[in-house]
């Protein structure tokens, strides 16, 4: 008896489900379903819904902005100058600086001597050398004083002064003789 009741319940449930299915399929079965199907096939696949512009542009924009920021940092960052090389400075000064020239007789003396009679040229050269030596001693003296040293002359320097004085003396004698001759 109980078994019959269970079967009956199952039959009711089966009918309810079938009704639901029929109800759901009803709209599709109405009219010419084959024609509708063919129409859908002819239409082709439904286009995929495209993403919104902001969604699509967000990541590339972020990437571009990040790349731009990095480039800006590199460009605006001050580039450190190349390291200074002492050898280059020594090389340049050694070749082109007046410091590298030996303390020889002044070029002015040879310039003066050029194209002059021998006696006059000799006199002017002697005077130029004397003046140059005098100037050099005068230049050195204030430097020594500024360095706080008492100027003291070695034997060699004294000999130079003596030699220089003789040059002046000799030059003056030549001038004196020339003026007498005139």
């Amino acid at each position, binding site marked *: 008896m109980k078994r019959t009741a269970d079967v009956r319940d199952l039959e009711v449930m089966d009918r309810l489900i079938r009704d639901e299915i029929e109800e759901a399929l009803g709209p599709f079965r109405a009219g010419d379903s084959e024609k509708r199907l063919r129409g859908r096939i002819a239409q082709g696949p439904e286009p995929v819904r495209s993403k919104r512009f902001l969604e699509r542009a*967000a*990541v590339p924009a*972020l*990437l571009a*902005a*990040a790349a731009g*920021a*990095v480039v*800006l*940092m590199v460009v*605006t*960052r*001050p*580039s*450190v*100058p*190349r*390291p*200074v*090389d*002492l*050898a*280059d*400075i*020594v*090389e*340049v*000064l*050694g*070749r*082109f*600086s*007046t*410091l*590298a*020239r*030996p*303390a020889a007789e*002044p*070029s*002015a003396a040879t*310039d003066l001597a050029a194209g002059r009679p021998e006696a006059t040229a000799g006199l002017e050269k002697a005077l130029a050398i004397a003046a*140059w030596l005098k*100037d050099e001693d005068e*230049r050195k003296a204030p*430097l020594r004083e*500024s*360095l706080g040293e008492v100027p003291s002359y070695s034997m060699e320097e004294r000999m130079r002064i003596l030699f220089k004085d003789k040059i002046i003396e000799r030059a003056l004698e030549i001038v004196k003789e020339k003026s007498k001759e005139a």
Partner: protein
Amino acid sequence: MKRCGLFFLGLIVLAVVLAAGEDGAADVKKAGYALLDKYVAAFQEIASSGSGAGLENRLRAMADDAKKAKDAGEIDRVFFTRYSRLLALSALVVAADQGNLLAPVVELELADFLKDVTGEDVVALRGAEAVGQVARALAEEVINLQLYLDTLERREALKKALSEGKPGPWKK
């Protein structure tokens, strides 16, 4: 994807913060470094080519550039003064001095420059010893100027701390 976006966003923020932090000091550094580089490059090129033609013109052009940068506010007064002195002394020692006309000026300027930069007295006025001493002082001054630029932000921070009465790092 969101994580990636956040990472790049963070990068941008970092870049902006760093750029804002450098502000005026970065401009001074950029112009100053460029001027120093020109000076070093001139010596490098002349030393490698062996031709001193145009050295004085290049020094003059550097002086013009420095003046323009100073007028435009791209370098500060301290850098301009010291860089100009470096150029002037360099021009003085490489000038073709007929008849040693400039010798007294060169000697006085050299004595001052050496005293200020290396603390040395003039050991010689002619020859290899003089060249070596002046070259060392010029190189030292280039390094001093670069260090000055390198530490601009630190200087500003110290000045600010002093003006606010905060103890400096030497009072730790």
